[in-house]
């Protein structure tokens, strides 16, 4: 495969579709593996993407996940049509959650999603307003030497 070529693509995410939840992230993981991206970067990108994907599935009717990979970086943008976030600073705190009980019983909604995305990306940006949905942009820089 030609590793210098830029690749990009998108996945449509359907809210409430728990059967396929995670499929977009695992497909992106495969795409990165085929391209020969180093495992440590793939792992970070996969975890960040998976959390973003789960947020769309759990909290919103639908969303779009876009990826853009070149020699320099992996860029992931997840845009949703959900209710938006009231207080982003609060939402970024580890353990803070507004998730209802049924979400917690599914093993999610313990307030680690956004912190996890931030932890695994080099650049993390979130834009959201109540009633206007949420857009998360994440960049993971490649070729920065060894990453744990």
């Amino acid at each position, binding site marked *: 495969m030609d590793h210098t070529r830029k690749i990009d693509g998108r996945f449509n995410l359907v809210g409430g579709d728990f059967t396929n939840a995670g499929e977009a992230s695992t497909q992106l993981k495969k795409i990165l593996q085929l391209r020969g991206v180093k495992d440590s970067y793939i792992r970070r990108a996969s975890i960040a993407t998976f959390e973003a994907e789960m947020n769309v599935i759990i909290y919103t009717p639908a969303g779009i996940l876009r990826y853009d990979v070149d020699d320099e970086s992996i860029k992931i943008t997840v845009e949703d049509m959900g209710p938006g976030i009231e207080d982003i600073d609060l939402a970024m705190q580890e353990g803070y*959650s507004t998730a209802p009980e049924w979400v917690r*019983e599914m093993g999610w909604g313990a307030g680690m999603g956004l912190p996890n995305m931030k932890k695994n990306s080099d650049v993390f940006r979130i834009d959201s307003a109540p009633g206007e949905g949420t857009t998360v942009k994440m960049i993971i820089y490649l070729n920065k030497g060894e990453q744990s």
Partner: protein
Amino acid sequence: MTIGDIINQLSPDSFSIEPDRDIEIKDVYVSDLLSDVMANAGEGSLWITLQTHINIVAVASMKNMPAVILVNGRKPEGETVQKAASEGIALFGTDMHAFELAGRLYNMLHG
């Protein structure tokens, strides 16, 4: 193993009431799913969890649990602390992961 033994050996943070150190702990339940705790935890056991919201107090109370230990450095929400105090349930916290805390308590119980 008493609550006092746990305090002495693991030095957890304490968020709620000062518990009765003589209370005997015969079993421990590790779970982050409230329905699981409701259905399966033994009466009077000690509960290890990551959940911090107020509903944990109601579950602990219904199961007659004397104490709950929050792991991974989680801090309880304000209303959780108040409710725990009013229900007489001790709330502890530790930076340990559930696996390690369970391992240490297991050794204290059976070691």
